[in-house]
């Protein structure tokens, strides 16, 4: 790893901050009064929650009000054990374990409910609203078990002084914040951003976005439960409002004001606002809420990334803090695995039909594709080409007939499972990750194959040789550090194609890969496709309008018209066909 890079201002600041935090945690109790210690202990627990909200909302794009519920469950689990069972060290340990485990398990269930395949992003928010309402109601109805509206109080807690709690929560907050900081910069952390940017692309890169989000929800629920354990001990009381929907919204407000999508922002935002409100709101309760509410609205509209986002813009961006390209390595030379050659055909479509209500979009399609073929799918607009592509890459589409990839029926398989069978799909409009760099996008394409690290941020990029070749042909290899949002339309198309090739697929589906490209770019893509199929033995299905381009590169052409496959033959057969001419001149109606 190159060590030549000088640490810049950001890294210095960060180091200084960690040292300052450690000093503060160690010596804070010496000069802070009891009020500050007590309030800050609680604020720091809330700050841990804000970090979890931020990971979900700021990074993974899941707006959640539900963290309050997990927090409350952790706190209630602790308080209930200590109230009803007693307070020996063993029981404290039991409380600790339950406070993490119960939210974790519930997190899996909530995650499963929230992120089923096909649910909308809004649905997760809906669930996150219902969860605290239900949990609060349980707390109210729990009678003596939960203390109803009065909550639980008077149980024995960890035997710590005010200073002890201050240090304990300080260390926990520092640990949680540091872990989050490392995680969001790791390769796995980038996956979250990729999911937020473009969940469909993630699925078509073989990533099971649902499962990742469920795991994230569950783990963060566990962390939140830990915060609940600390809270139940430090405050000595647990009440229904600690688990309610309003508290959930407050966490989001603190995160937003501090700056979502950063780690430091929500931490400082939460501590600052909570401390200020403890000091001020006693005197001006309504005015305080009014000011915070108005600030929040203004912030969401004008500064969606909060104060930290503003500071981040001013400070120079560190090269090391965002995954740059690093040396490009050709880790593997792609070759056709033996089993494919053994068992042709690669793709078999049998009597495929697809209809929306009474409208038949596809009917009676039969098609077989062998390794090494480059099949072009042509036909006028509305012929069903894009629908056909979708039916080949998403097994959850309801169809009649069957589609098999390498002998396996894809019915019911989600896109990521079909990617695992060896199918890569390129969309019509370039589908990439706008918040990432070129190198990070390419790494995302490898994430399904090689589990990304939760800690490290890779400096290398391992790509199959074919992908490397495309990068070189399109000059993208010199732009690995560049943010994708700064790429031209043509380069985005090329990048997406490289990402699909980096999946090492055996069948590539391409929907108008040359649309909007210049002549040179089109030539480059043509060259690449010919090489992939001709030399490496992949198969490709290409939807294309440019008949000249089709004629030049295809090994076979299939004509789709009004949902039916009307012609399937060599380039020569099709080009000379009267039927095709008639279709394209708009005359043919069977």
């Amino acid at each position, binding site marked *: 790893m190159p060590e030549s890079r000088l640490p810049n201002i950001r890294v210095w600041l960060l180091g200084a901050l960690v040292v300052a935090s450690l000093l503060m945690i160690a010596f804070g109790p010496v000069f802070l009064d009891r009020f500050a210690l*007590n309030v800050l202990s609680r604020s720091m627990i809330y700050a841990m929650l804000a970090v979890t909200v931020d990971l979900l909302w700021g990074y993974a794009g899941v707006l959640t009000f539900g963290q309050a519920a997990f927090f409350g469950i952790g706190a209630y689990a602790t308080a209930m054990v200590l109230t009803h069972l007693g307070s020996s060290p063993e029981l404290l340990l039991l409380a600790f374990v339950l406070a993490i485990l119960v939210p974790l398990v519930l997190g899996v269930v909530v995650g499963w409910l929230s992120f089923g395949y096909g649910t909308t992003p809004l649905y997760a928010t809906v669930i996150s609203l219902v969860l605290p309402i239900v949990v609060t109601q349980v707390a109210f109805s729990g009678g003596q078990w939960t*203390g109803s509206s009065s909550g*639980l109080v008077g149980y024995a807690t960890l035997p710590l002084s*005010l200073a002890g709690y201050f240090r304990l929560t300080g260390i926990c907050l520092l640990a949680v914040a540091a872990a989050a900081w490392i995680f969001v910069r790791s390769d796995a952390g980038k996956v979250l951003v990729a999911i937020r940017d473009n969940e469909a692309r993630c699925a078509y890169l073989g990533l099971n976005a649902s499962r990742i989000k469920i795991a994230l929800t569950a783990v963060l629920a566990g962390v939140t439960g830990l915060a609940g354990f600390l809270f139940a001990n430090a405050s000595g009381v647990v*009440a229904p409002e600690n688990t309610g929907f309003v508290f959930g919204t407050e966490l989001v407000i603190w995160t937003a004001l501090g700056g979502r999508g950063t780690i430091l922002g929500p931490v400082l935002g939460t501590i600052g606002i909570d401390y200020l409100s403890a000091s001020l709101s*006693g005197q001006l309760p309504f005015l305080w809420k009014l000011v915070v509410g108005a600030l929040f609205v203004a912030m969401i509209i004008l500064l969606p990334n909060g104060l930290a986002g503003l500071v981040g813009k001013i400070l120079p961006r560190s090269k090391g803090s965002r995954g740059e390209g690093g040396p490009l390595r050709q880790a593997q030379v792609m070759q056709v695995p033996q089993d494919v050659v053994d068992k042709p055909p690669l793709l078999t479509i049998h009597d495929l039909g697809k209809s929306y209500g009474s409208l038949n979009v596809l009917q009676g399609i039969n098609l077989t594709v062998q390794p090494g073929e480059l099949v072009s799918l042509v036909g006028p607009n509305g012929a069903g080409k894009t629908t056909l592509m979708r039916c080949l890459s998403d097994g959850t589409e309801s169809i009649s007939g069957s589609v098999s990839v390498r002998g396996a029926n894809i019915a019911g398989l989600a896109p990521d499972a079909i990617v695992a069978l060896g199918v890569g799909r390129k969309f019509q409009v370039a589908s990439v990750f706008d918040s990432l760099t070129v190198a990070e996008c390419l790494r995302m394409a490898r994430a399904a194959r090689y589990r990304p690290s939760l800690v490290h941020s890779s400096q290398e990029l391992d790509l199959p040789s074919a992908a490397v070749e495309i990068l070189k042909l399109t000059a993208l290899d010199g732009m690995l550090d560049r943010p994708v949002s700064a790429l031209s339309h043509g380069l985005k198309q090329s990048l997406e194609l490289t990402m699909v090739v980096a999946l090492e697929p055996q069948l590539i589906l391409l929907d108008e890969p040359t649309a909007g490209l210049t002549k040179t770019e089109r030539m480059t893509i043509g060259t690449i496709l010919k090489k992939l199929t001709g030399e490496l033995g992949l198969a490709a299905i290409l939807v294309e309008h440019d008949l000249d381009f089709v004629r030049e590169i295809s090994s076979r052409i299939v004509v789709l018209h009004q949902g039916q496959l009307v012609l399937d033959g060599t380039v020569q057969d099709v080009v000379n066909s009267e039927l095709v001419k008639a279709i394209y001149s708009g005359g043919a109606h069977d």
Partner: protein
Amino acid sequence: MDRTTRKLLFAMAGGLLATAAWAEDPIKIGIPVGLSGANSVVAPSVVQSAELAVEEINAAGGVLGRKLQLEIADDASGAAGAQKAFDSLVFQKEVNAIITMETSAARNAGLPIVAKGEVPFIYTSFYEGRSCSPNLFVNGWVPEQQVPPIVDYFVKKEGAKKFFLVGSDYAFGRGMLEFARTYLEKAGAQVVGEEYLPIEGTDWTAIISKLKSSGADALITSTAGGAPNVTLTKQLRGAGIKLPYGNLAVDEGTAKSMGPDAAGIYIAASYVTSIDSPANKKFLEAMQKKFSGELRTPNDLSVPQYEGIYLYKAAVEKAGSTDASAVLSALGEVSVAGPRGTVSMNKQHHAPLTMYLGQVQENGSVKVVETFPDVDPGTQCPNL
């Protein structure tokens, strides 16, 4: 800014300025109270009566030659806000005592903090009972004191045999009605229904339909104060319910402003404005003089607050200092004659009280129907 808040700020500023005139540091009394949230309807009246008490005591020479000073903080009517308020009062303002009415959640949230800070806590609200702590004294009523007057009256005077109980699903609502059920069954009456709605619930339809079909001949409700109480009463009247109706959670002020819907409701309280005693008349006049147009109707929460400050004064004088442990041991022994009569928190940190059964009249005033002197709080904290 609303008038009460503004007045509060002035009062606090005034308190600070006046400090200089006194030889010793003032004795600080912390009032964490729900200036916002559910209790904010009643909180201003509580602050007013506390201000009057402090003014009177200071005018008469203070306590042990020291002036009393109020420190008010908003507890947002809940646990989280109460933690902030108690932290601020106990650790930052370093008050000598906490005297206040709060929600049960807020009181519970404050208890660990007064224990850490070793501060006496006089709780001046009626509540569901059985909150026990060495630091805590209570001068409001508990179910054992409030339920019997209504039940006895309904059974004996109205001839009611079948009772229907309705409450908000929270500690007070459940606590009151659980006691009511036991008491009713002991009195030989029958409970034909007991229903709860979530505390934020707004739709009582199903419960009212059940009430109608239950054949009950009396109704007792114990909802959260303020909105749920008003909502239930409106919907009951809308549905044409005209049974004898005992409301365990309505205060005089709310009943007054509820208009014709409230007429006929029975309430039981340790304080109603119409108590015919010289002490009460003097208190009401002083309140009227001090606050005139801004006056909030004194009620069953604000008057115990007023007396609570006098109780604390008496305890400090008996103990000879503000030392917490000395004051705590004195608090159970002193008594104070106030608008509610003579009050002493001598029964396991709770107070025997004279209870009044009142009925809301068409014009909104509360007419005392019957008086029950010195009702015992029963077994509240046998371990104290």
